[in-house]
C-alpha cells in the first residue's frame, strides 16, 4: 500500500529513489506528457465555459486523479516510491533556505537573480537531466524565485480558517464561488493553493507548472487538506450533485480519462494513505 509521507520526514534513501524515478520519467518522455496535459486544462478551463481541472468543483478530484496517474508512472519505475507532500504552512516561508525540501540532495534551491535559473540540485539545467521542453517561452532551464518580492506562504491559521468551511462548493461553481473548494484553490479569500504557486515563482507560476517537481508535493498536500476537510465535515459532500452545465457533477466522469467521477475519488484510502 502506498503511504504518502511528509517530505520533511523522508530518509536520504527515499529522497534518492524519488528523484531517480522523476529523472527516469523525464528521460523517457513520459514526464512531459503530464506537463502538456496540465497546461491544456489550464488554458481551456474558463469561468463561464466548460471547466474541469481548475476553477471548478472538480479541481480537487481532477488533481487527485492526475496525481494518481503520475504516482503510478513513478511506481512503474520504482515500486517503492510514493508521492511525498509539502506542508507549506509549517515549512516557514521566511526560512526556506533551511528547509530540507530545497536542499541540493532533494529539489534544489531558488533561482539566481539574473535569470531565475535553478543552479543546484538534481533538476538544475547544468546536470543535463532536466530540459524544459513544454512551456510558453524558449527558456530550457528550470526557474524559481522562492518568496520573491517578500511574498509569504499561507500560515497554519489561514489553513485552519479554510478547513472550517463546511460547504464543499457553491454556485456559480467557478473562481467567484464561496465555500471550501474555491478558498482552498485560492481565487477567493486568504488564498492557499494559488499563493503557493506564486510564492515558488518561475515555472510554478505558469500554466506549465508541473515542469517543477515541487508541483507534485504541493498538490499532494492540497489533496491531503481535502482529506482533512472530509474528516472534519463528515456530513458534507461533493457538490454539485447533478445537472450542472459546464461543470463536473458528482457522478459524471472527468476528462481526459473518462474512467472516474468525483464520486469514485472521494475516498483516497483504496489508493494510498497518509503518514499522519
Amino acid at each position, binding site marked *: 500500500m502506498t503511504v504518502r509521507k511528509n517530505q520533511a520526514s523522508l530518509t536520504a534513501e527515499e529522497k534518492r529513489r524519488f528523484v531517480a524515478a522523476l529523472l527516469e520519467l523525464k528521460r523517457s518522455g513520459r514526464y512531459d506528457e503530464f506537463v502538456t496535459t496540465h*497546461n491544456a486544462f489550464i488554458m481551456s478551463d474558463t469561468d*463561464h465555459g*466548460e471547466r474541469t481541472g481548475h*476553477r471548478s468543483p472538480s479541481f480537487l478530484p481532477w488533481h487527485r486523479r492526475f496525481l494518481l496517474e503520475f504516482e503510478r508512472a513513478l511506481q512503474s519505475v520504482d515500486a517503492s516510491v510514493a508521492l511525498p507532500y509539502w506542508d507549506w504552512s509549517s515549512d516557514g516561508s521566511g526560512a526556506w533556505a533551511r528547509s530540507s525540501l530545497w536542499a541540493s540532495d532533494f529539489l534544489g534551491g531558488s533561482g539566481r537573480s539574473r535569470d531565475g535559473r535553478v543552479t543546484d540540485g538534481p533538476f538544475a539545467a547544468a546536470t543535463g537531466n532536466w530540459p524544459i521542453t513544454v512551456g510558453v517561452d*524558449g527558456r530550457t532551464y528550470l526557474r524559481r524565485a522562492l518568496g520573491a518580492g517578500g511574498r509569504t506562504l499561507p500560515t497554519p491559521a489561514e489553513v485552519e480558517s479554510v478547513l472550517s468551511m463546511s460547504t464543499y462548493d457553491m454556485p456559480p461553481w467557478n473562481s*467567484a464561488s464561496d465555500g471550501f473548494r474555491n478558498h482552498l484553490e485560492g481565487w477567493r479569500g486568504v488564498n492557499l493553493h494559488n499563493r503557493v504557486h*506564486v510564492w515558488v515563482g518561475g515555472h510554478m507560476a505558469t500554466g506549465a507548472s508541473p515542469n517543477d517537481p515541487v508541483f507534485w508535493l504541493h498538490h499532494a498536500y492540497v489533496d491531503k487538506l481535502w482529506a482533512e476537510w472530509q474528516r472534519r465535515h463528515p456530513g458534507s459532500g461533493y457538490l454539485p450533485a447533478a445537472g450542472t452545465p459546464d461543470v463536473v457533477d458528482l457522478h459524471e466522469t472527468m476528462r481526459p480519462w473518462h474512467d472516474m467521477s468525483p464520486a469514485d475519488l472521494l475516498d483516497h484510502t483504496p489508493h494510498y494513505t497518509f503518514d499522519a
Partner: protein
Amino acid sequence: MPELSRRRALTTAAALATAAGVPSALAPSARAAGAAGHRHGSPADFDEVYRGRRIRGTSSAAGGHHHHGPGYAVFVDDVELHVMRNADGSWISVVSHYDPVPTPRAAARAAVDELQGAPLLPLPSN
C-alpha cells in the same frame, strides 16, 4: 462543445463588424452574445512599449486564435499571449496563471516581467 460554438459565433460577429467598418470594440450583437458569458464589457485597447517590448491588447477577436478567448487578444512583440478573464473581471495569462491582476495591460506587463527578455512561443494551434 457549447463554448466552441459560442466563440465561433463571437468571432464571426467580430469579423462582420470589422468588415462593416465598425471600429475597435465588438458590435452590439457580439457584445450581447458575450454578455451571457462575461459580466463586463470589453476592456480598452492598448499599445505601448514596456521594458523595451511592445505589448498590445485588442478587443478584435478576429486577430487572435485563443483556445477559449475572452474576445480580447494580447500580444508581446506580436506573439499572442494566452490571457483569460476571471468571473470578477480580473485577468491572468498563461505565464502568470495563479496571480490575477486588474487589467489585460497589467497581465501583459506581468508577462514581460516574467519573461525577462525571452521571446514568447506562438500558441499551439489546436
